[in-house]
Each structure stands twice: as C-alpha cells, then as structure tokens.
C-alpha cells in the first residue's frame, strides 16, 4: 500500500477538522504537563503520546480516508462468425464440388479439427447468416443453411454487431454491399470463397427498354452483356416475342472479363401486351446459365387510331362524324363515301368525274387488319360487298378489331345481313325488313348502363351528365332494333309510346362492336349550338365511341400503377389501381375485382383492399415462379389487363467471386483478408491476440469501515489505561 492508493473525502470542513486536531494536541500537552510531576517526564510523554495518537486517529476519520485497489483482468474475446447467404453463394465453390456456401460449411464443420469447434474452445463465438438481413444462427442450423437471399450489407451488419463482439470473421465470395469509408468499430477478418480465375459465365447484366411502344415505330432495347472466361468467342443474342424470334445479333468479347452493349431493334405491329425475352444460348462450362436470359413486358399502343369508314351516301351524319374525327389529331381516317349507286346516271365522260372506284377487295382481304376500327355508315352493302367480306369483318373483330354500324335507311340492307357473319358479331338482332322510322320524334335518354358507361359518361359529374343528355334534341329518324342479351344498351329513344335502343355496344371475340341506330346524331351537335351552348358533347361522344371501341387506355376508368422495381419469384408483389370518378356505381356497389393468372394461364390467389381514398385499391399476390403474370381488373363498366414480369432470382446475377471487395472491406474495418490456404485457426488467433483487450477493475474501501483501525485505537487506549494503572495513576 502506498500513499497514492489512499484518498480522502472530508465529511466536515477541513478547518473544523484541523481545529479539532489542534484541541486534541492541546489536550495531550496539558495532560503531559499535569502528570509529569507524578510520573516523571518519560512516563508522562508515553501516556500523552498514546492519548494523542488515539485522538488523532479518531479525528482523522472525519477526513473519510479510502483505500483504492486496482485489478487488471484479461477479456475472454467474443467472436462473430458471418456466413454470406446471398444468391451467388449458391454457385460452384473453388473446388468445383458443392456451392460456395458448402465450401464455407466444410471449413467450419468438417475435417479433423472443425473450425467452429476450435474457435468455441478459445473464444465466445456467435454465428450469423448475412443475407438481405442479418440472422442469428446456431451451430446446428449450419448444415441446413441455404443460399438465395439478396446481397447482404456489411456496413449495416457491423453497426449491429460492434457493441456485442470484439471481432468478426466473414465467409463470403465478395458479392456484398459495402459503404465506402473506414469503419473500425469491429475488425473484420474475411475468408474468400469461390474461384475467380476458374469462373466462366455470360450474363445479361442490364437492359434498357421502354415500358410501352407505339405500333409501327421502331423500338430499341439496349442489352448490356458481360462475359467471364470466353475471350474471342462469338455468341448470338436473340430477342423473342413469346416463342417467335424477332431479331438476333452476334457479340464477342475481347477480354477475359468484358462488357458489351448491343442495341436490339424491332418494329412492333401488333397491339397489346407483349412478353419479350432476351437470351444467349448456354455455353460449355458456364457456371451459371439462368442469368443468360431476361424477360420483359412491352405494351404496344397505337400512335394513331386508324379508322376505315364506308358511307352509303353523302350525309350530314357523315360530315359531322368526319368533322369530329378530323378534330382529333390521334385519329387517322380513311373514308369512302358512295357518291353514286349503280342505278344513278352520271352522264359525263370520265375526265369530268371525280368518283373513284371503291377498292373493296384490297380493303377487305389485305388492308383491314391495319385498321383499328371499321365503320359501316348507312351502307347498302349488298351493292358493294360480297358475303365473303363479312367473314373478313368477323375475323377482324374476333382478333381484336372493332366494328361500328351507323343507322339510316340502308342500315339493315333490306335484311341481307340476316344469317351472315355481320349479324353474328352485332350486339343487336336484325329484322328481315327495313325498319327505318322517320315518322316520329325520338327523345333520347340514358339507360341504366349508359349512366356509367365511358362512352355516354360525357362528364364525371353524374347529375350534370344526366342533364346533358336530357337537353339533347330529339332524333328525326331511327332504326328499330332489339338488343341481344350480350349487348348493352346505353341510349334509348322514346317515341310513339315505345322505347328503342339507339346506342348499343357489345364484345365479340377480342374486339368490340357498336350500333348507333340513327343517322340524325348530328342534331346533338347543332341542337346544342342552337341553344347557344358548346358543341363539345357531340365531339366528345364520337371521340369516346372511337376510344372505347379501340380500347384506348385513356378511356379506362381503371388506372393501374405497376411496381417500379422488378419482382422476384417468391416475393409478394403489390399493385395499386384507381377506379375513376365516372365509374361510381362499381365503387359504390363493390363491383371491383382483381384476378391474377400465372404464366400458364391458371388463376392464382390474390388479395385486394381499399387504400387511401375510396376509389384507390391495393392488390397483392405471391408469384411462385418467374414469368409473365396477367392481371385483370374488372368493373361492370370497364376492364383492364396488364402484364407483370416476375424475374428469376438468378436473372442478371453477376456471380463472379470478388476477393478484392473482401480486401477493401476488411482493410477498412481494421481487419485483414485471409487465404483459404492459411491455417485459419492460427491466423484468427494471431489476429485476435493483437486486438486482445484487458479489463481493469478499480475498487475503493473506506478505512473507517475496517475493523483493524478500531482495534488499533482500542489497543492505544487500552495500553494507556494499563500503564496508568501500573504507574499508579488510577
């Protein structure tokens, strides 16, 4: 014990303690002066000194002296063992037998001296799986551990483990996330797995492709291909639409590890969603072939809506419709108006006629598919069309085209459509006789379906829309028809005590059909102008008829938001969709449904719930395998289909081992990169010694708490008492 180990902490002010000491000294001197006459100087001095010591000790307790003890202990190190469980750890390891994860398991569990066992004897170890998140493991879990997660974040793991462990050992191939910059909170010793020199692979690293394209316009998809170990060889990169090859290009690598970007271009001609795939045939010796292909979805839309309109005669119906079509820059109209029938007498030489032959055969045998919408406007078709062309129209609609018939005296062509393909596709039943009525005035009103249908819902405001249709002028002529069960009546005409369908729509095959049973719809234009109002209701009606028929997405009351990031098989996918204000009936009555179909076309389980506002929905499903999933969202008034590509977890995976990444990480953390050839146990131990820390314990104890101090005082006082008795003072 040295004076450095003693500390004081006075319980009274120091001046009071010194005053008491002074009084003690004074008392001892007085005692000496009184008893020295009886006992003589030596004996009086002994007694007074004994008293003085006892007093001093008692008073010095007021200084609260303590004794400090310092004890240093060696810390038993806590070691975190991290096993990378990302996808690339499932690729072949260095020896070529088993995966990289198996290689790690072998080091830890197998051999005459399993590393885990050896480390457990020397350290306090804890095992972790490092994937998308950090998971705590037991030694027993190691055998069943599988690779397949997303890349782990080492910086994040260090943040979590730094307070619990003094060192970490990482088993990885280096395909990890790492935030640049030193982080010496937890030294990390890395053990590299896999063989970068022997790794051979070709992968499609990234693709840059538009989500949608326009029919007839070139689409360019930039494909970035990376190759390892295939220097000098040439490979084809092909682009397929389903199973149909669209285009292919060759690539070759100049370096053992090289990247090449090639553009693949094509011009889509068919509308709708396309499931495209880009692929490279598997090569001999490739470590991973499932990253040779990438799937993507491309929605092909119309840049222009192409309409073919054939009118039976010049008419106001034709002129106003033509005006409406020409008013819309997205419509490309090709119209033919029959200016004279075979019975009309033109009576002038050819050079004075402007009439042109109707190219019926070309139109109906070759060109029809290039149009989106075919319109027969009051057409006495038997004069110009052979029945075989009706078959062409049916096939056109069945394949996704659209067809509209506009009424008038020649609409039914004197019953000649009966039993033809035209009768089959129309949403109305046809009569044998011409049933055109011009003897009454027909007031037009919205049917129940018409109130919510995108064609007749000219305004999102339900009441305003209803009022708008009530204001529309009456029609002077209509065709008397009966809607088929498959047809939906949107507008009804009230006249002579009966109700007649005026606007009827339906579906046939993949296409849509519409019948407007009047040639007086132009009155809806001029009637509003006559009232001093705007002409937009008629223009909007015609525009919406065209857009509904041609399935224009802008008219969909359902707007779908697909996830921005590509989804993986086994990962829940979420989609958001919104039902427009105009489809209020569906929302009110809960007629909104979501169906999801897997790549084989089988319906799979999906969930749907409202999200945010009442017209927003959140749908979800769990794709079990990769491929193109079809989503169908339906309301009674609308239906939207979208394709969502679910990728394979291996898609785009660059699995080459990156020991240099491990070196960067370990150096930044103050650790080091080991080699598989090293004696790992010794290396870890050696490194652990360097980072070994000791624990120093400091303990203080108050002297007045010690019994020996009181015994010493008692001895002083007892000795004084004994000597007093001996020397005859008591």
């Amino acid at each position, binding site marked *: 014990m040295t004076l450095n180990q003693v500390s004081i902490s006075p319980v009274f002010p120091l001046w009071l303690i010194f005053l008491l000491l002074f009084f003690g000294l004074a008392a001892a001197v007085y005692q000496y002066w009184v008893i020295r006459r009886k006992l003589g100087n030596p004996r009086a001095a002994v007694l007074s000194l004994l008293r003085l010591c006892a007093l001093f000790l008692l008073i010095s307790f007021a200084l609260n002296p303590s004794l400090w003890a310092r004890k240093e202990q060696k810390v038993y190190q806590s070691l975190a063992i991290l096993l990378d469980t990302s996808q690339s750890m499932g690729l072949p390891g260095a020896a070529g037998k088993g995966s990289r994860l198996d290689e790690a398991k072998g080091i830890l569990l197998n051999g005459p001296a399993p590393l885990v066992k050896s480390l457990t004897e020397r350290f306090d170890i804890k095992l972790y799986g490092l994937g998308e998140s950090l998971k705590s493991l037991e030694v027993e879990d190691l055998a069943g551990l599988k690779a397949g997660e997303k890349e782990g974040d080492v910086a994040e793991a260090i943040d979590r483990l730094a307070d619990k462990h003094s060192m970490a050992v990482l088993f990885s191939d280096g395909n990890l996330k790492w935030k640049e910059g030193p982080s010496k909170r937890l030294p990390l010793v890395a053990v590299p797995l896999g063989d970068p020199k022997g790794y051979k692979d070709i992968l499609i690293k990234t693709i840059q492709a538009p989500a949608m394209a326009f029919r007839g316009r070139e689409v360019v998809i930039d494909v970035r291909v990376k190759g390892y170990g295939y220097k000098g060889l040439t490979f084809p990169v092909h682009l397929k639409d389903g199973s149909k090859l669209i285009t292919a290009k060759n690539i070759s690598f100049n370096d053992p590890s090289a990247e090449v970007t090639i553009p693949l271009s094509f011009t889509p001609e068919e509308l709708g969603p396309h499931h495209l795939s880009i692929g490279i045939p598997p090569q001999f010796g490739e470590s991973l072939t499932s990253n040779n292909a990438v799937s993507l979805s491309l929605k092909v839309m119309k840049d222009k809506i192409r309409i073919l309109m054939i009118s039976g005669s010049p008419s106001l119906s034709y002129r106003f419709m033509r*005006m409406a079509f020409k008013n819309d820059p997205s419509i490309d109209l090709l*119209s033919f108006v029959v200016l004279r029938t075979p019975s009309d007498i033109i*009576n002038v030489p050819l050079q004075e*006629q*402007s009439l*042109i032959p109707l190219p019926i055969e070309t139109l109906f045998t070759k060109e029809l598919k290039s149009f989106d919408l075919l319109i027969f406007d009051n057409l006495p078709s038997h004069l110009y069309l052979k029945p075989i062309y009706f078959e062409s129209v049916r096939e056109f609609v069945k394949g996704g085209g659209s067809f509209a018939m506009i009424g008038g005296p020649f609409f039914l062509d004197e019953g000649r459509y009966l039993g033809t393909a035209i009768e089959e596709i129309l949403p109305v039943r046809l009569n044998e006789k011409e049933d055109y009525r011009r003897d009454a005035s027909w007031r037009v009103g919205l049917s129940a379906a018409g109130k919510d249908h995108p064609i007749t819902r000219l305004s999102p405001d339900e009441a305003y829309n209803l009022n708008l249709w009530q204001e529309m002028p009456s029609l002077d002529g209509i065709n008397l028809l009966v809607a088929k069960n498959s047809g939906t009546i949107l507008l009804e005409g009230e006249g002579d005590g009966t109700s007649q369908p005026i606007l009827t729509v339906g579906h046939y095959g993949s296409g849509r059909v519409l019948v407007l049973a009047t040639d007086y719809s132009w009155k809806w234009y*001029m*009637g509003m*102008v*006559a009232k001093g109002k705007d002409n937009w209701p008629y223009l909007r009606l015609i525009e919406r008829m065209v857009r509904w028929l041609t399935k224009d997405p802008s008219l969909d009351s359902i707007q779908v938001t697909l996830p921005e990031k590509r989804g993986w098989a086994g990962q829940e996918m979420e989609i958001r969709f919104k039902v427009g204000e105009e489809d209020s009936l569906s929302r009110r009555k809960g007629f909104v449904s979501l169906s999801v179909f897997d790549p084989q076309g089988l319906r799979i389980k999906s969930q749907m719930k409202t999200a945010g506002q009442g017209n927003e929905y959140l749908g979800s499903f769990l794709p079990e395998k990769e491929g193109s999933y079809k989503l169908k969202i339906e309301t009674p008034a609308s239906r939207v289909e979208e394709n969502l590509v679910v990728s394979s977890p291996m898609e785009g995976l660059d699995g080459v081992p990156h020991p240099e990444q491990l070196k960067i990480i370990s150096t930044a953390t103050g650790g080091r990169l080991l080699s598989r050839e090293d004696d790992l146990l010794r290396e870890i131990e050696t490194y652990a010694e360097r980072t070994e820390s000791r624990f120093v314990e400091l303990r203080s104890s108050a002297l007045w708490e010690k019994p020996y101090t009181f015994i010493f005082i008692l001895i002083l006082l007892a000795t004084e008492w004994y000597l007093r008795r001996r020397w005859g003072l008591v």
Partner: protein
Amino acid sequence: MEAIVEELELRTSIDALKERRIATLSDPDLFFCPFLYVAGKYAFEPFTPREREILRRYITFGGFLFVEDTMGAKGFGFDQTFRKEIKEILPNRELKRLPTDHPVFQTFYLIGNMGGRQKVNAYLEGVTIDNWTPVIYSQNDLSGAWARDKFGNWVNECVPGGEGQRSSAFKMGINIIVYSLTSDYKKDLVHHPFIKRRQNL
C-alpha cells in the same frame, strides 16, 4: 329548285326530300337545317344584331350557307347588301374567290367552267374557316339555269353559253350540295392520284 333535287336523286346516291322549307333567322329550327339557300336580286333590309349573331353562330358551328345573286350582273343591290352583311357577320373573315382546286369543284364532278343563267363570274366566292367553306356565293344565277315550268320547259335561257352553260350549272349545284354533306372529303390523299390523272386527260 325541284329540278336540282330531281337531278340530285337521279345522278347521286343522295336521297333528297322534295319539300321546300322556308326559314327565318329567328326560327328555332334554323340550326336543324344545315343547308341554307339564300337568293335575291335587290337590296334587302339589314339584319338585326340578334340575327347577325344567330347567323354567325350558325356559320361558325357547322351550318352551310349558299347565297346567290340572281340579278345576273355585278354590283347591284343584293350583291352590295350581302357583301356588307357578311362582313358584319364575320368581321375577321373575308369573302374570297375560291381557288380552282377547291373541293367544291371536285366533290362529284370535276368542274373547270362555271355555269349559270348569266356567266357573270368565272369563279365562286366563299368564306373559309380552317378547311371548311361554310359560305359559298355565286353571282351566276345557278337557280335561274335550273328553273323549269310546270311543263318541264326551261324558264330561262343561259347566256352566252346556252345549254352547255346550263349543264355546268347543274353540275355546280350538285357539287355544292355534295360539298355541304362531305366537306373536304375529296382532298383526302386517296382521291388525289385519280383526280390528277383525270384532269390531265
């Protein structure tokens, strides 16, 4: 006018109603008559501001107006009054000569010569809004050339061209009516090579 309707039915696929309907500018059904025919020889009472507004609206929003000065000479009362009125009705538009490639000369017949009772002008005039000419003005008295008596005889002689000039008047009348129902249909690209070839014959 019966003669032009008969010829229209005979020569074209148009199914016309043979009835005369006289409308005033204040008629609420005016807008349901998308082809208005106005003819006269003499000066007429100027339109009221209300009538001008109705006519402006009618012309601007889809109506068609065919106006004829039947005097058979230039610069008389009707011509003066009409020119003044159309300027009042459409102050930002001008009554201009229609070019020879205007669709009205190509809608049914390819017309190179103007007909009429009197060949006052070798052209038609009109007011064009975008690609549509809702006002067409003739001073050749086309209707005078079409007129027949109840026995089917021509009421007026056509001078100086005679029957050829009458024939041209019918062709022009049919073209104007077809134009009012098809607008610039003949300007569609599909017609262009045919028309050009025939004009070069």
